């Protein structure tokens, strides 16, 4: 049960933190339609996060609700991958990140619909539709940028070069995932790599972009986001996200 709770936090925190970053685009995008699309993506991910955090708080017996988990955990208690906490960057970076993240997550969710845990399976089934749209959106923009102007192709390439070093972490199984995979509950992320590579190569081909060669970003003696070891950027994100909730812990909203 502790493993299941940890696993829900991993997938829930990924969604929560990426939703937070995407939210920063509101009032800042190049076109209203894309502002709506990015807000909608954030809203979908926020919904996934809420379901998964609620499940984690139930399963671990702590009785913590989604808000206790989102707003009153400290940095080292978050289980998201580092990819989702990177600063927003420009639209090319966001497209690259969303492409990488949603390609990986869709592959994962597709398999998770068959999870032995009925709640995870149900969350995954709903999320598959959403993330399919996110991946399509990112892929369409990757093609437009890659096959657009010289400058936009450069920005897409730079975006991929920024985020791909953090992709390694997506495919590195945590001991929790190993154990739950054997129980038929979780997905072994290492198994997602082939599908990920195929999709990414396809999109890059349509975008006339070469996938940049990158050095995976290092861990701290093997520990990374899934172990609560994050980037220097993450503390700022949490300080902002949690500030109001923490300023009056007795408040009801």
């Amino acid at each position, binding site marked *: 049960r502790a493993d299941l709770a940890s696993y829900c936090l991993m997938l829930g925190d990924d969604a929560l933190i990426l939703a937070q970053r995407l*939210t920063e685009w509101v009032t800042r995008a190049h076109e209203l339609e894309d502002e709506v699309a990015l807000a909608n993506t954030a809203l979908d991910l926020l919904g996934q996060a809420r379901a998964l955090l609620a499940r984690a708080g139930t399963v671990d017996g702590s009785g913590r609700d989604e808000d206790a988990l989102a707003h009153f955990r400290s940095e080292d208690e978050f289980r998201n991958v580092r990819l989702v906490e990177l600063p927003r960057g420009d639209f090319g970076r966001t497209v690259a990140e969303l492409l990488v993240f949603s390609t990986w997550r869709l592959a994962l969710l597709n398999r998770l619909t068959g999870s032995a845990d009925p709640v995870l399976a149900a969350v995954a089934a709903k999320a598959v539709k959403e993330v399919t749209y996110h991946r399509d959106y990112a892929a*369409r923009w990757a*093609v437009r940028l890659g096959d*657009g102007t010289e*400058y936009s192709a450069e920005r897409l390439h730079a975006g991929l070069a920024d985020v791909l070093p953090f992709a390694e972490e997506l495919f590195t199984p945590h001991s929790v995932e190993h154990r739950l995979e054997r129980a038929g509950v979780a997905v072994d992320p290492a198994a997602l790599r082939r599908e990920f590579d195929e999709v990414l190569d396809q999109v890059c081909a349509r975008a006339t972009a070469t996938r940049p060669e990158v050095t995976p970003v290092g861990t701290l003696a093997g520990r990374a986001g899934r172990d609560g070891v994050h980037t220097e950027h993450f503390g700022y994100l949490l300080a902002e996200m949690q*500030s109001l909730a923490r300023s009056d812990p*007795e408040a*009801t909203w």
Partner: protein
Amino acid sequence: MSTEEATLGTESELRDHFEDRIARDQRIEPRDWMPSGYRETLVRQIAQHAHSEIIGMQPEGNWLTRAPSLRRKAILLAKVQDEAGHGLYLYSAAETLGVDRSELTDKLVTGRQKYSSIFNYPALTFADIGVIGWLVDGAAIVNQVPLCRASYGPYARAMIRICKEESFHQRQGYELLMTMMSGTAKQRAAVQDATDRWWWPSLMMFGPPDGDSPNTRQSMEWGIKRHTNDELRQKFVDMTVPQAEALGVSPPDSGLVWNPERGHHDFSEPDWAEFRRVLKGGGPCNAQRVERRRAAHEEGAWVREAAAAHAAKQAERGEAAL
């Protein structure tokens, strides 16, 4: 003009036809003839309304990343997204009148077209989110419900859709305030403080007193305004006072009192000098609001160019658009 002047009468016939439709409360549609004053007034009115939706995203957007619960974050995000949607409907309605959206955006970011002055005030606490829903959306609804019967079809249809969503937003705002009023002392104080700050600007949303609103008559004749500013303001006050009581907050107006003879609330005059100052750029956030949109537009230019370049390449290759 008589039918005898038929050869010269094409325009006057069209005008008669137009005025007849207006008189019979029938809708004008994009392909119908309309006087240039009507068209211009409508374009300006619809564009300002669209700009207001877009700029209005900013004060609320200021709390998106700090919403104190995930449920409130989701509600707020959905609301701000709806506002972008409203902006899009309205720009489309304006485009049916022969203007280009990019032209309107350009006028917004260079300060040549206005948006509702209310959005030049800052959203300083999360209570502001509730009060914006309650008072600002409330005032917007009072302004807009009559426009669902506006004489111009595309505008009226946009308003119907928008009003429906806005009354939903208004209820959500009020519900947030109700929740906060049953919370901590700090929360209750924040709701009162936000009410104090937004009350007068909300009353000013209906525009200057009727005596200072020279265009009202023409707009009412054209059916693109249905009530005077003061009528709408009175309606808003009458509607809002009992809501404030139910909530347990006091509007910051010692002159606010029920007048049984009029069957309406009396209330004090807003500070019209402040209204004019804010309109002319002297509000707390005018520069910030336009600058944010300008920066987004400018920093996003390369993305729009990329999309256009890609579409051109596709067309050249005879491919379907993405």
